[in-house]
């Protein structure tokens, strides 16, 4: 079987290991950090300018992959909504003993409510666990790309990247 982003639309473990935007295991343990799942040389660079701490570098040519300087990154999440590919997340493994927090861009309506329990999905859209909505950032600066922070059991932090798309209430009946 053909594996990897180009064949399945899902980034493979191998690809993640080689990805210069993917933090090291040690860095994950230290607290919130950006996870940049962008592995093809496409002409794109808004994430670079978005980071207030200069933690993302692309440089010239513009097709270079974004490289994360995990020492400079504070996991603030500002870069998430700047990415037209919706390929940037933050993960906080230090949130509590049992839970991690994954933050991701979410451009679907209606948005969930703070505190709500929702089904969390992996990169294939498969439901893997249930999470709790902690925070939704949706300021003008996000330009209609809300960022959802979701608390989930730690062991799913490397997999959960979104939640199930809400159904329109009217049609649910």
């Amino acid at each position, binding site marked *: 079987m*053909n594996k990897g982003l*180009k064949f399945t639309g*899902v980034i493979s473990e191998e690809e993640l290991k080689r990805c210069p935007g993917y933090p090291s295991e040690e860095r994950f343990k230290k607290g919130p950090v950006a996870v940049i799942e962008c592995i*093809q040389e496409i*002409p794109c660079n808004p994430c670079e300018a978005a980071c207030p701490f200069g933690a993302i570098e692309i440089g010239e040519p513009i097709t270079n992959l974004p490289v994360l300087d995990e020492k400079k990154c504070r996991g603030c999440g500002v870069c998430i909504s700047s990415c*037209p590919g919706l390929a940037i997340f933050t993960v906080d493994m230090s949130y509590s003993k049992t839970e991690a927090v994954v933050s991701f861009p979410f451009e*679907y309506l209606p948005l969930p409510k703070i505190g709500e329990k929702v089904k969390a999905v992996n*990169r294939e859209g498969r439901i893997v666990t249930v999470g709790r909505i902690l925070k939704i950032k949706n300021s003008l600066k996000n*330009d209609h790309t809300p960022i959802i922070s979701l608390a989930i059991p730690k062991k799913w932090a490397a997999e959960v990247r979104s939640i199930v798309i809400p159904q329109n209430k009217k049609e649910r009946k």
Partner: protein
Amino acid sequence: MELVEVAVIGAGPAGLAASIEAAKAGAEVVLIDENNRPGGQLFKQIHKFFGSKSHMAGIRGINIATKLLEDCEKFGVKTLLNTVAFGLFEENRIGLANKDKKSILRAKRIILATGASENVLNFPGWTLPGVMGAGALQTMMNVNRVLPGKRILMIGSGNVGLIVSYQALQAGAKVVAIVEAAPQIGGYGVHAAKIRRAGVPILISHTVKKVFGNDCVEGAVIVRLDKKWKPILGSEKKIKVDVVCLSVGLNPLTELAWMAGCKFVYIPALGGHIPIHNWNMESSKKDLYVAGDLTGVEEASTALEEGKLAGLAVAESLGYLKREKASKRKAEIREQLIALRAGPFGELRRKLKEPFMQGDEIRK
């Protein structure tokens, strides 16, 4: 008959950028488009764009259009909307038609930025209502706010197919599957990834065999393809859908360039026949310039840069810009274009375009 300095046909990113550059330099510019508002493809694009930060990447297409329109206004570009350019005739005459009348406009220089139109695919049932192009689906959803169906099958996994699928999900439809005949996904991985996270399967080496239904689409049969792209008997699968959306490429809208007698090359990877041009975006015909998807289907970012080149070259040829100043700006834009065409997705386009994109001496 009215005589203007510059006429630009097509108000997409290429035509808008060309108009702005020429008008900024001091030329009199008339911009013509068949739609009731300028912007071309951009008005359907509610997603954030790729590209370089300095060229409006990360901004939604529709907002890019708004910004360009402001600049057009600022520099005094005159726009003729709801107006089709139906022909190019001798002595730089352009035939125009709107609802009320036909007219002829003469221009010292003409820039063609007509964009591209969608390819179609035929299969049994392809004429049933519910089978439509990705552009049509996008226009219905994002401009007219109508969702033509609840369960969509997307044919083609290029960036257009992936983005329109995403927008269909946002609009509340279910995208049942994306099928792709090639053995790999055509568009950017990041676009594919966001569709997969939403639970949409992308089936490579698959195509649509037929579409069925009484008065409209009620379902489709998809089939797996072998290494030689032949359907594998017995692998057919029936799926329930009410929209089958085609996103199988675009081809440049070249009619006006043919009519003017431009020389063409045939490059399938750029969408088919494209008019030959140099680094000034000047075609083989005197006074006629070309830019954007018409010169090879690419992206809004490249269309903008090509438009700027054409606008600058036209202004220079009319004496509004000194050679040194124009050369400096053109060199910067060329660098941008080369950078935008780097990487695995753009490299081929650069290699295909460069052989004839040479020379930028202004023809007097």
